[in-house]
């Protein structure tokens, strides 16, 4: 036993060197599975504590930046709202002088998309709000980009939103600047278009298209899209107007339902 101990201590240096060489050779010829496992172990033991701290710091910095940006946006929005409120009061006053019906006001109810259906492009979505949240059929649905669609059916805790990309959905719309009207619809081949716009109308690429409020479903002023191509065909009484949708229907997340309440 003592002999073995002596032999061991005599060749301790060689044993260490041989061990390291064997380990390196083993790693060299080991498959990617072993190497990736070692990578994982090293990552978890040595890197992950610092990665967590770094990611948290970066997250905090991003939140701080977002906070500053949103604070600035809030100030701007508050200023705009005060201007709009003044304009609204003036509008109400003038409408009452003229004897017009009071315009409905809307409240926003946030909702989340539960699922989306459609083969090539989303055409309908199920949301997590229903009759229990006072949701009813034909309520308009929007997000921060513009008009998304309308509620087509509703159950106690969920509702189906018919998106503007559904070919059977139509929106009475108008051009923001020239105020001329048409009907927005979606075709799976040609995309979103503004139909029934007479060739006498004034329209150009880049014009914004908003809902006109004449269809009875969507209130006026909701952004629907932007003109990207205007085609005037011979002997046709209407323009063919192609639109870029205001909303990216492939990345829908949070949406808002417009609930109408009559102004007192």
């Amino acid at each position, binding site marked *: 036993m003592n002999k073995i101990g002596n032999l061991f201590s005599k060749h*301790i*240096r060689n044993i260490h060197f041989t061990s*390291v060489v064997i380990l*390196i050779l083993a790693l*060299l010829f080991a498959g990617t599975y072993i190497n990736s496992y070692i990578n994982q172990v090293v*990552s978890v033991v040595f890197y992950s504590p*610092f*990665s967590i701290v770094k990611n948290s710091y970066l997250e905090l910095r991003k939140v701080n930046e977002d906070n500053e940006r949103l604070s600035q946006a809030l100030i701007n929005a508050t200023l705009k709202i005060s201007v709009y409120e003044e304009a609204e009061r003036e509008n109400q006053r003038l409408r009452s002088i003229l004897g017009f019906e009071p315009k409905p006001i809307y409240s926003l109810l946030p909702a989340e998309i539960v699922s989306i259906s459609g083969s090539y492009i989303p055409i309908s979505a199920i949301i997590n709000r229903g009759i229990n949240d006072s949701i009813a059929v034909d309520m308009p649905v929007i997000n921060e980009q513009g008009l998304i669609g309308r509620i087509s059916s509703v159950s106690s805790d969920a509702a189906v939103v018919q998106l503007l990309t559904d070919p059977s959905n139509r929106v009475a719309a108008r051009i923001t600047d020239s105020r001329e009207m048409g009907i927005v619809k979606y075709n799976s081949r040609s995309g979103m278009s503004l139909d029934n716009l007479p060739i006498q109308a004034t329209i150009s690429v880049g014009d914004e298209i908003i809902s006109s409020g004449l269809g009875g479903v969507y209130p006026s002023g909701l952004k629907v899209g932007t003109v990207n191509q205007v085609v005037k065909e011979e002997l046709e009484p209407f323009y063919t107007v192609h639109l870029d949708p205001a909303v990216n229907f492939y990345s829908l997340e949070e949406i808002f339902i417009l609930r109408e309440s009559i102004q007192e």
Partner: protein
Amino acid sequence: MTKYIPYLLYFWLIAMHQVFLSDVTSIFGVKINLPLLIVALVAVYKEEIEILWFGFFVGLIGFQGANDYMIWQVLMVTVIGVVTYHFKERLNLESLFARLILVFSVILVHNIFTLLLELNEGFFNTLFVNALPSAVYTTIFGWIFFLIKNDRLTYKKIKSIF
């Protein structure tokens, strides 16, 4: 067992450097090669067996993200550590300058090796723009370490300057 605790701390220091400090301390894309600096310093102050295993583990930990090259880095760092130890044994490293030359050479050799492993073209350009400045930059930290270790740079002295 407690004698291995500093090595564990070195490993965490290397990991922390790779995660946080590497980008913060880089100047015009030139980074400190901390794993190799620590290997060189351990080789200067410790025994052969210790640097053998330390080099092996620094290769594993310090170059964890190097994917296909990780094993070659392990081999290279281990060899560099042992060779540095033998240089220290055979050369007179009493002077600070000699130690710095050794540290600089070790880091430059490793940087060149890494370049050869990873780079397909523009070798000389990257050598002069990145590898050489990185070796100089890392050696400056080695110099500061030696000054502190030899009590030539102390808190009192720094305080007296200001």
